[in-house]
Protein backbone atom coordinates (compact mmCIF):
# COMPACT_ATOMS: atom_id res chain seq x y z
CA UNK A 1 0.00 0.00 0.00
CA UNK A 2 1.00 3.60 -0.47
CA UNK A 3 2.89 5.30 2.31
CA UNK A 4 0.52 7.45 4.34
CA UNK A 5 1.15 9.66 7.31
CA UNK A 6 4.52 10.41 8.82
CA UNK A 7 7.25 8.48 7.02
CA UNK A 8 9.44 8.65 10.15
CA UNK A 9 6.90 6.80 12.25
CA UNK A 10 8.86 3.57 12.40
CA UNK A 11 9.09 1.11 15.26
CA UNK A 12 11.87 -1.12 16.48
CA UNK A 13 11.86 -4.68 17.75
CA UNK A 14 14.87 -6.85 18.46
CA UNK A 15 17.15 -4.12 17.13
CA UNK A 16 15.41 -4.12 13.72
CA UNK A 17 13.49 -1.12 12.45
CA UNK A 18 10.20 -1.55 10.61
CA UNK A 19 7.89 0.94 8.97
CA UNK A 20 4.97 -1.44 8.43
CA UNK A 21 2.83 -2.16 11.49
CA UNK A 22 1.08 -5.09 9.86
CA UNK A 23 2.67 -8.50 10.32
CA UNK A 24 1.43 -11.41 8.26
CA UNK A 25 1.17 -15.13 8.74
CA UNK A 26 1.62 -17.42 5.74
CA UNK A 27 -0.82 -20.21 6.64
CA UNK A 28 -4.12 -21.23 5.03
CA UNK A 29 -3.56 -19.56 1.66
CA UNK A 30 -4.93 -21.30 -1.43
CA UNK A 31 -1.47 -21.43 -2.99
CA UNK A 32 1.94 -19.83 -2.80
CA UNK A 33 1.14 -17.21 -5.42
CA UNK A 34 -1.97 -16.01 -3.59
CA UNK A 35 0.11 -15.78 -0.43
CA UNK A 36 2.88 -13.81 -2.09
CA UNK A 37 0.39 -11.40 -3.68
CA UNK A 38 -1.35 -10.85 -0.35
CA UNK A 39 1.89 -10.24 1.51
CA UNK A 40 2.98 -7.77 -1.11
CA UNK A 41 -0.36 -5.96 -0.91
CA UNK A 42 -0.14 -5.86 2.89
CA UNK A 43 3.20 -4.08 2.81
CA UNK A 44 4.26 -6.44 5.63
CA UNK A 45 7.98 -6.55 6.34
CA UNK A 46 7.69 -9.29 8.90
CA UNK A 47 6.12 -12.69 8.14
CA UNK A 48 5.75 -15.88 10.13
CA UNK A 49 6.57 -19.36 8.90
CA UNK A 50 6.24 -22.76 10.57
CA UNK A 51 8.69 -25.64 10.71
CA UNK A 52 7.94 -29.26 9.85
CA UNK A 53 9.77 -32.47 9.05
CA UNK A 54 10.53 -32.93 5.39
CA UNK A 55 8.31 -35.47 3.71
CA UNK A 56 5.06 -36.01 1.90
CA UNK A 57 6.33 -34.00 -1.06
CA UNK A 58 3.67 -31.29 -0.69
CA UNK A 59 3.74 -28.08 -2.69
CA UNK A 60 4.64 -26.18 0.47
CA UNK A 61 8.23 -26.76 -0.65
CA UNK A 62 7.83 -23.71 -2.85
CA UNK A 63 6.89 -21.50 0.06
CA UNK A 64 10.28 -20.14 0.93
CA UNK A 65 11.09 -19.50 -2.70
CA UNK A 66 7.93 -17.39 -3.11
CA UNK A 67 8.71 -15.45 0.05
CA UNK A 68 12.28 -14.72 -0.86
CA UNK A 69 11.16 -13.16 -4.14
CA UNK A 70 9.58 -10.43 -2.05
CA UNK A 71 12.12 -7.85 -1.07
CA UNK A 72 12.64 -6.60 2.45
CA UNK A 73 10.90 -9.47 4.23
CA UNK A 74 12.13 -10.59 7.65
CA UNK A 75 11.17 -14.14 8.54
CA UNK A 76 9.86 -14.98 11.98
CA UNK A 77 9.77 -18.76 12.45
CA UNK A 78 7.13 -19.89 14.90
CA UNK A 79 7.23 -22.87 17.22
CA UNK A 80 3.75 -24.15 16.37
CA UNK A 81 3.36 -27.83 17.06
CA UNK A 82 5.33 -27.46 20.29
CA UNK A 83 3.43 -28.53 23.38
CA UNK A 84 6.20 -27.87 25.89
CA UNK A 85 8.98 -25.35 26.44
CA UNK A 86 11.59 -27.98 25.54
CA UNK A 87 9.95 -28.62 22.16
CA UNK A 88 9.61 -24.90 21.47
CA UNK A 89 13.27 -24.28 22.29
CA UNK A 90 14.29 -27.04 19.89
CA UNK A 91 12.03 -25.65 17.15
CA UNK A 92 13.43 -22.15 17.71
CA UNK A 93 17.00 -23.31 17.24
CA UNK A 94 16.09 -25.16 14.03
CA UNK A 95 14.20 -22.12 12.79
CA UNK A 96 17.17 -19.87 13.38
CA UNK A 97 19.40 -22.27 11.46
CA UNK A 98 17.01 -22.05 8.49
CA UNK A 99 16.05 -18.38 8.60
CA UNK A 100 19.24 -16.79 9.81
CA UNK A 101 16.88 -14.47 11.68
CA UNK A 102 17.10 -13.88 15.43
CA UNK A 103 13.32 -13.61 15.67
CA UNK A 104 11.16 -16.39 16.99
CA UNK A 105 7.45 -16.43 17.65
CA UNK A 106 7.15 -18.66 20.69
CA UNK A 107 3.84 -20.43 20.30
CA UNK A 108 2.97 -23.25 22.68
CA UNK A 109 -0.61 -24.46 22.73
CA UNK A 110 -1.14 -27.98 24.03
CA UNK A 111 -4.88 -28.22 23.34
CA UNK A 112 -5.90 -28.37 19.66
CA UNK A 113 -9.50 -27.56 20.59
CA UNK A 114 -8.95 -23.99 21.74
CA UNK A 115 -5.25 -23.41 20.89
CA UNK A 116 -4.87 -21.28 24.00
CA UNK A 117 -1.21 -20.52 24.74
CA UNK A 118 0.25 -22.29 27.78
CA UNK A 119 1.48 -19.43 29.96
CA UNK A 120 3.92 -21.49 32.03
CA UNK A 121 5.63 -23.28 29.16
CA UNK A 122 5.65 -20.05 27.14
CA UNK A 123 7.36 -18.21 29.97
CA UNK A 124 9.99 -20.93 30.39
CA UNK A 125 10.78 -21.10 26.66
CA UNK A 126 10.94 -17.31 26.42
CA UNK A 127 13.33 -17.12 29.37
CA UNK A 128 15.75 -19.67 27.88
CA UNK A 129 15.60 -18.33 24.32
CA UNK A 130 16.02 -14.69 25.33
CA UNK A 131 19.13 -15.68 27.28
CA UNK A 132 20.44 -17.39 24.11
CA UNK A 133 20.12 -14.13 22.20
CA UNK A 134 16.87 -14.75 20.36
CA UNK A 135 14.51 -11.84 19.75
CA UNK A 136 11.61 -13.58 21.45
CA UNK A 137 8.08 -12.63 20.42
CA UNK A 138 5.72 -14.72 22.54
CA UNK A 139 2.16 -15.51 21.50
CA UNK A 140 0.50 -15.22 24.89
CA UNK A 141 -2.77 -14.93 26.75
CA UNK A 142 -3.81 -11.31 27.18
CA UNK A 143 -2.63 -11.18 30.78
CA UNK A 144 -0.85 -8.05 32.05
CA UNK A 145 0.90 -9.94 34.86
CA UNK A 146 2.36 -12.51 32.49
CA UNK A 147 3.22 -9.66 30.11
CA UNK A 148 5.38 -8.03 32.75
CA UNK A 149 7.07 -11.34 33.59
CA UNK A 150 7.85 -11.97 29.91
CA UNK A 151 9.23 -8.48 29.53
CA UNK A 152 11.41 -8.97 32.61
CA UNK A 153 13.08 -12.09 31.14
CA UNK A 154 14.08 -10.18 28.03
CA UNK A 155 11.39 -10.70 25.40
CA UNK A 156 11.64 -8.38 22.40
CA UNK A 157 7.89 -7.86 22.18
CA UNK A 158 4.61 -9.12 23.58
CA UNK A 159 2.03 -10.77 21.34
CA UNK A 160 -1.19 -11.11 23.31
CA UNK A 161 -4.18 -12.69 21.61
CA UNK A 162 -7.18 -10.63 20.54
CA UNK A 163 -9.21 -13.84 20.65
CA UNK A 164 -8.67 -17.51 19.79
CA UNK A 165 -6.48 -18.35 16.77
CA UNK A 166 -8.48 -18.36 13.56
CA UNK A 167 -11.72 -17.55 15.39
CA UNK A 168 -12.36 -14.13 13.88
CA UNK A 169 -13.79 -13.00 17.23
CA UNK A 170 -11.84 -9.75 17.16
CA UNK A 171 -10.57 -7.92 20.24
CA UNK A 172 -12.43 -9.98 22.83
CA UNK A 173 -9.60 -9.21 25.24
CA UNK A 174 -9.70 -5.41 24.70
CA UNK A 175 -9.70 -4.46 28.40
CA UNK A 176 -6.69 -6.66 29.15
CA UNK A 177 -4.90 -5.42 26.03
CA UNK A 178 -5.24 -1.84 27.32
CA UNK A 179 -3.67 -2.86 30.62
CA UNK A 180 -0.80 -4.59 28.80
CA UNK A 181 -0.18 -1.56 26.59
CA UNK A 182 -0.23 0.75 29.60
CA UNK A 183 2.42 -1.30 31.43
CA UNK A 184 4.66 -2.39 28.56
CA UNK A 185 8.04 -0.90 27.69
CA UNK A 186 8.40 -3.18 24.65
CA UNK A 187 6.17 -3.34 21.56
CA UNK A 188 2.74 -4.91 22.01
CA UNK A 189 1.50 -6.71 18.91
CA UNK A 190 -2.00 -8.14 18.85
CA UNK A 191 -1.77 -11.63 17.45
CA UNK A 192 -4.69 -13.88 16.59
CA UNK A 193 -8.42 -13.56 16.36
CA UNK A 194 -8.79 -10.55 14.11
CA UNK A 195 -11.38 -10.70 11.34
CA UNK A 196 -12.05 -7.15 10.16
CA UNK A 197 -9.69 -4.27 9.39
CA UNK A 198 -11.66 -2.11 11.85
CA UNK A 199 -10.44 -4.40 14.64
CA UNK A 200 -6.85 -3.84 13.56
CA UNK A 201 -7.47 -0.10 13.58
CA UNK A 202 -8.92 -0.37 17.09
CA UNK A 203 -5.81 -2.19 18.30
CA UNK A 204 -3.55 0.54 16.95
CA UNK A 205 -5.82 3.25 18.36
CA UNK A 206 -5.38 1.82 21.85
CA UNK A 207 -1.61 2.05 21.48
CA UNK A 208 -0.59 -1.38 20.26
CA UNK A 209 2.53 -1.11 18.14
CA UNK A 210 1.34 -3.50 15.41
CA UNK A 211 -0.97 -6.42 14.64
CA UNK A 212 -0.34 -9.85 13.17
CA UNK A 213 -3.01 -11.31 10.92
CA UNK A 214 -3.28 -14.49 8.92
CA UNK A 215 -6.72 -16.12 8.65
CA UNK A 216 -8.46 -12.77 8.18
CA UNK A 217 -6.52 -12.29 4.95
CA UNK A 218 -5.99 -15.89 3.84
CA UNK A 219 -9.67 -16.82 4.24
CA UNK A 220 -11.02 -13.59 2.73
CA UNK A 221 -12.79 -13.65 -0.63
CA UNK A 222 -9.95 -11.65 -2.17
CA UNK A 223 -6.86 -12.04 0.03
CA UNK A 224 -4.75 -9.35 -1.66
CA UNK A 225 -7.57 -6.78 -1.47
CA UNK A 226 -8.17 -7.65 2.19
CA UNK A 227 -4.45 -7.34 2.93
CA UNK A 228 -4.53 -3.85 1.45
CA UNK A 229 -7.60 -3.00 3.55
CA UNK A 230 -5.80 -4.15 6.70
CA UNK A 231 -2.76 -2.06 5.78
CA UNK A 232 -4.93 1.05 5.46
CA UNK A 233 -6.77 0.31 8.69
CA UNK A 234 -3.51 -0.15 10.58
CA UNK A 235 -2.19 3.14 9.20
CA UNK A 236 -5.43 4.91 10.15
CA UNK A 237 -5.41 3.45 13.64
CA UNK A 238 -1.82 4.48 14.18
CA UNK A 239 -2.51 8.02 12.94
CA UNK A 240 -5.47 8.23 15.32
CA UNK A 241 -3.36 7.09 18.25
CA UNK A 242 -0.67 9.64 17.43
CA UNK A 243 -3.29 12.37 17.03
CA UNK A 244 -4.71 11.65 20.48
CA UNK A 245 -8.31 10.54 20.80
CA UNK A 246 -10.76 12.80 22.60
CA UNK A 247 -11.73 11.68 26.10
CA UNK A 248 -14.63 9.25 26.26
CA UNK A 249 -17.80 10.68 27.79
CA UNK A 250 -20.31 8.86 29.96
CA UNK A 251 -22.96 6.66 28.34
CA UNK A 252 -25.77 9.06 29.07
CA UNK A 253 -24.23 12.48 28.69
CA UNK A 254 -23.87 14.17 25.32
CA UNK A 255 -21.86 17.31 24.69
CA UNK A 256 -22.96 19.54 21.89
CA UNK A 257 -20.56 20.68 19.27
CA UNK A 258 -22.69 23.74 18.48
CA UNK A 259 -23.70 26.60 20.76
CA UNK A 260 -26.89 25.65 22.57
CA UNK A 261 -28.60 28.99 22.43
CA UNK A 262 -32.33 28.86 21.96
CA UNK A 263 -32.31 31.32 19.13
CA UNK A 264 -35.18 29.66 17.30
CA UNK A 265 -37.53 29.80 20.26
CA UNK A 266 -40.08 32.58 20.26
CA UNK A 267 -38.80 35.46 22.25
CA UNK A 268 -41.30 36.09 24.98
CA UNK A 269 -41.44 39.56 26.32
Amino acid at each position, binding site marked *: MKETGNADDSWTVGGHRFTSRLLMGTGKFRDAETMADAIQASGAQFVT*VALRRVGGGSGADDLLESLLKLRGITLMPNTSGARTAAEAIRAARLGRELSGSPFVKVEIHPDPHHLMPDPIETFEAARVLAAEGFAVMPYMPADPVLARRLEDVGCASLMPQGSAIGSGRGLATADMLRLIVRGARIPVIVDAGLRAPSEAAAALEMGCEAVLVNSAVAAAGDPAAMADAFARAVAAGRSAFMAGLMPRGSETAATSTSPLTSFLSPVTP
Partner: protein
Amino acid sequence: MKVILNGEPFETTRADSVTGLLEETGFGGREVAVVLNGEMIPAGARGAYRLSEGDHVELFRFVAGG
Protein backbone atom coordinates in the same frame (compact mmCIF):
# COMPACT_ATOMS: atom_id res chain seq x y z
CA MET B 1 24.17 -48.60 5.07
CA LYS B 2 20.85 -48.28 6.83
CA VAL B 3 19.94 -45.08 8.68
CA ILE B 4 16.68 -43.85 10.21
CA LEU B 5 15.51 -40.86 8.18
CA ASN B 6 12.66 -38.88 9.77
CA GLY B 7 11.66 -41.99 11.68
CA GLU B 8 11.68 -44.34 8.67
CA PRO B 9 14.42 -46.84 7.72
CA PHE B 10 16.40 -45.61 4.71
CA GLU B 11 19.02 -47.56 2.82
CA THR B 12 21.78 -45.32 1.54
CA THR B 13 23.53 -46.54 -1.57
CA ARG B 14 26.54 -44.27 -1.64
CA ALA B 15 26.19 -41.63 1.05
CA ASP B 16 28.53 -41.81 4.02
CA SER B 17 28.18 -38.17 5.10
CA VAL B 18 25.33 -35.84 5.91
CA THR B 19 26.02 -33.88 2.72
CA GLY B 20 25.95 -37.10 0.70
CA LEU B 21 22.67 -38.17 2.26
CA LEU B 22 21.08 -34.81 1.39
CA GLU B 23 22.18 -35.21 -2.22
CA GLU B 24 20.94 -38.78 -2.38
CA THR B 25 17.52 -37.79 -1.02
CA GLY B 26 17.17 -34.81 -3.33
CA PHE B 27 17.74 -32.17 -0.67
CA GLY B 28 21.22 -31.15 -1.75
CA GLY B 29 21.39 -27.38 -1.94
CA ARG B 30 17.87 -27.04 -0.49
CA GLU B 31 16.93 -25.13 2.60
CA VAL B 32 16.71 -27.84 5.22
CA ALA B 33 17.86 -28.05 8.82
CA VAL B 34 19.58 -31.29 9.76
CA VAL B 35 19.48 -33.06 13.11
CA LEU B 36 21.82 -36.04 13.53
CA ASN B 37 21.16 -38.24 16.57
CA GLY B 38 19.48 -35.34 18.31
CA GLU B 39 22.16 -32.78 17.51
CA MET B 40 21.60 -29.97 15.04
CA ILE B 41 24.30 -29.88 12.36
CA PRO B 42 24.92 -26.35 11.02
CA ALA B 43 24.85 -26.12 7.23
CA GLY B 44 28.55 -25.23 7.02
CA ALA B 45 29.62 -28.29 9.01
CA ARG B 46 27.64 -31.04 7.25
CA GLY B 47 30.46 -32.35 5.09
CA ALA B 48 32.49 -33.14 8.20
CA TYR B 49 29.85 -35.42 9.71
CA ARG B 50 30.21 -39.11 8.75
CA LEU B 51 27.18 -41.34 8.95
CA SER B 52 27.16 -44.68 10.77
CA GLU B 53 24.82 -47.63 10.61
CA GLY B 54 21.58 -46.90 12.50
CA ASP B 55 22.08 -43.13 12.79
CA HIS B 56 18.94 -41.11 13.29
CA VAL B 57 18.70 -38.26 10.79
CA GLU B 58 15.91 -35.69 10.81
CA LEU B 59 15.36 -33.06 8.14
CA PHE B 60 13.22 -29.97 8.70
CA ARG B 61 12.04 -27.18 6.43
CA PHE B 62 9.77 -24.18 6.54
CA VAL B 63 6.13 -24.53 5.66
CA ALA B 64 3.27 -22.05 5.65
CA GLY B 65 2.09 -21.07 9.10
CA GLY B 66 0.89 -18.21 11.23
